């Protein structure tokens, strides 16, 4: 039997913990560049730093081979204006992308300037980025010379919403498309990146979670000189000494939700995304920003259908959506006709909803694969869904289950399953560490890349910024002397880390997660007021004071989860501190306050920053577009950039 209870029944005892238990034992690693988080950004950072000839250590909570949101795959290499088919220049496209309040112009400029080079390097490593097997000859967007497959996405503008010009005559003709997004075969990318790390001599520490950053003399706000970690299989304590450290972990993916019994982690983020990287930076004194902005959870939460398994979502790849009687439903489908738009406007959604109630459209809706030309159908089903994170397994199981894309229409769960509750929100986007043009944080020795930065973008952004941060951190490490870590700081962290394994009763990690999630649902959700924020903060502080000291963990895995939950609690507090500080509503931040209802008053048109100074929260601010002229700044900081890597 392969279940735990099956084993117990057959063997008469539960299985023993399969790994050696090394609680409190120390392993010390000395490195030039330390990368924490081995997802897309982290792997690229490690590769890029190792190419500079430095000693690099990569710390990954899971196994680098498939970890991170981009671990299982990637179908779109987005915003790659330097590709030869593009009709926009990298600087122009970056400027267009950055024409959104509270974005990250630094990350965007790096993405637009360098992600094509990054893609070509991926190809050198063995990644498939072109239709070299001629499987999709004749598909719209396929270029016969380069064999690149252009995606409809961002055909006219950088938006998921339709271009307002959409229904005008001659909208989005082939000769005028931006061609800034390429379809790629990304299910192979992550194993290739791990292999390249190992080939370059990067020391990869899998199943190790970072728990804290070490600062010079243990002082908050001091130069970062290393980190501590915990092996989640053995419980071993890891001490990393480094000259430069790159944080490439991610945000807290499930802060408002805890529904594991109904596959609560069946969303776009795994539970490993617990915000612990952000909290490490925060406790060390790094400045964060955009922490008050949160998004709605629009996708599966365990109470809804798995994302992509229904046509309503698979349709986001050029598949027409029809009602139960075959009538076309008028929302965008990320196709050529709508220039890649994939989200209906609220007006269109309301119209369809009304149409359903009046009988104009009959549920359920379907993704009409059979109506598509064969090559387009294949491009959607095999290439896009087959190569995207977490969708490959879906198409495999549908194929095995008898679904025939030439004959069958896939059911859509849009509308049928209802909307997400307004109390289900997502901190996974937007909030993060403040960076400068070197992707350095506000702390010396500490860099950030990918989703760890404020206002991140997508896979190619993570790759390009990781590669960039690796380069910059390596340059810093080359010019800095040996670092000295504080033993006192290590001892304090050890005491904190191992506290839960010294108990066997109290509360377990799941309860802490559920408790934090409920506080966020009550006090930091649809109804936002000073009073509710303060009540939320009070409730979190009470939980921290009374419940966290009773957390127990029975093995190293549960200890990791416990530490993640403690991070999530801290993350929740930061969100409330930031929310209290912004005394105004903001539409781009999806931050509506009842006590300050006017959206985006000019005096609040700015980033709020937060950091800890002597353990007290300090609020600051930065103007919109504080990064200056993107083209000029990029060029001033990258005079030595040599483009696509050549050599070993």
């Amino acid at each position, binding site marked *: 039997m*392969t*279940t*735990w*209870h099956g*084993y*117990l*029944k057959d063997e*008469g005892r539960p*299985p*023993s*913990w*399969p790994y050696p238990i090394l609680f409190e034992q120390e392993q010390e690693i000395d490195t030039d560049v330390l990368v924490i988080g081995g997802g897309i950004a982290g792997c690229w950072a490690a590769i890029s730093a190792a190419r500079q000839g430095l000693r690099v250590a990569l710390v990954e909570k*899971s*196994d680098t*081979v*498939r*970890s*991170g949101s981009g*671990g*299982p795959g990637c179908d779109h290499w987005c915003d790659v204006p330097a590709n030869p088919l593009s009709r926009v220049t990298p600087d122009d496209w970056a400027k267009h992308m950055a024409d959104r309040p509270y974005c990250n112009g630094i990350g965007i400029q790096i993405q637009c300037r360098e992600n094509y080079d990054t893609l070509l390097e991926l190809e050198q490593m063995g990644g498939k980025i072109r239709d070299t097997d001629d499987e999709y000859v004749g598909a719209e967007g396929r270029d016969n010379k380069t064999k690149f497959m252009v995606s409809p996405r961002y055909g006219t503008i950088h938006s998921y919403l339709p271009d307002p010009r959409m229904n005008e005559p001659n909208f989005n003709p082939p000769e005028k498309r931006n061609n800034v997004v390429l379809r790629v075969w990304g*299910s192979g990318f992550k*194993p290739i990146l791990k292999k390249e790390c190992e080939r370059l001599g990067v020391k990869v520490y899998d*199943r190790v979670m970072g728990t804290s950053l070490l600062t010079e003399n243990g002082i908050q706000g001091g130069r970062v000189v290393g980190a501590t970690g915990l092996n*989640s*299989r053995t419980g071993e304590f890891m001490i990393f000494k480094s000259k430069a450290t790159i944080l490439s972990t991610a945000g807290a993916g499930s802060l408002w939700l805890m529904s*594991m*019994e*109904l*596959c*609560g*982690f*069946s*969303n776009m*983020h*795994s*539970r*490993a995304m617990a915000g612990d990287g952000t909290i490490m930076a925060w406790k060390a004194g790094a400045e964060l920003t955009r922490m008050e902005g949160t998004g709605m959870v629009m996708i599966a939460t365990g109470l809804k*259908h*798995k994302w992509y*398994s*229904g046509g309503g979502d698979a349709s986001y790849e050029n598949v027409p959506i029809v009602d139960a009687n075959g009538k076309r439903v008028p929302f965008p489908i990320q196709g050529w006709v709508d220039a890649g738009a994939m989200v209906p406007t609220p007006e269109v959604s309301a119209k369809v909803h009304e149409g359903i109630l009046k009988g104009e459209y009959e549920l359920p809706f*379907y993704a*009409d694969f*059979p*109506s598509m030309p064969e090559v387009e159908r294949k491009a959607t089903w095999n290439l896009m869904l087959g190569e995207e*994170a*977490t969708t*490959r*397994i879906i198409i*495999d*199981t*549908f194929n095995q*289950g008898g*679904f025939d894309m030439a*004959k*069958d*229409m*896939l*059911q859509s769960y849009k509308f049928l399953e209802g909307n997400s509750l307004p109390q289900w929100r997502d901190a996974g986007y937007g909030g993060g560490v403040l960076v400068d043009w070197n992707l350095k944080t506000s702390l010396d020795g500490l860099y950030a890349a990918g989703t760890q930065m404020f206002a991140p973008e997508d896979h190619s952004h993570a790759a390009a910024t990781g590669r960039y941060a690796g380069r910059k951190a390596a340059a810093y490490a080359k010019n800095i002397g040996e670092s000295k870590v504080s033993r006192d700081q290590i001892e304090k962290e050890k005491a904190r880390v191992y506290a839960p394994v010294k108990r066997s009763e109290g509360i377990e990690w799941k309860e802490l997660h559920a408790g934090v999630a409920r506080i966020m649902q009550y006090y930091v959700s649809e109804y936002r007021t000073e009073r509710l924020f303060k009540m939320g903060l009070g409730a979190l502080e009470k939980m921290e004071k009374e419940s966290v000291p009773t957390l127990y963990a029975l093995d190293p*895995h549960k200890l990791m989860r416990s530490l993640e939950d403690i991070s999530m609690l801290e993350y929740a507090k930061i969100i409330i501190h930031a929310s209290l500080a912004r005394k105004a509503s903001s539409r781009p931040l999806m931050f509506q306050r009842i006590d300050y209802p006017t959206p985006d008053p000019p005096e609040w048109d700015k980033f709020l920053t937060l950091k800890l100074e002597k353990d007290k929260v300090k609020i600051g601010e930065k103007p919109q577009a504080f990064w200056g002229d993107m083209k000029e700044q990029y060029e001033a900081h990258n005079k030595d950039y040599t483009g696509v890597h050549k050599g070993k």
Partner: protein
Amino acid sequence: MSQKELFAIPNVQTPNQPVLFNPDICTGCNECVEVCPIDVYIPHPEEGRPPIILHPEECWYCGSCANDCPCPGAIQFNWPLQSRGYWKNKKTGEIGQL
């Protein structure tokens, strides 16, 4: 009926068992144990046997274990009942489901 002792066992922690192993095909190589980003599995104490599903409720259904399994057919992905998708044959109107 087995005469073995009946244990007092808490309810299974989740209604979902993310995968089904075929013990005739699985060689117990533990590739899935290594690629799983969140340690849903532990190796079976006895070498050569399929792993034990220890943390099914932490699975985020990324599919990496099944995708990377070197023995085709050893792991069958097992969508929870509440997540088994439907389709309809366009010509006949017949409904299919996973």
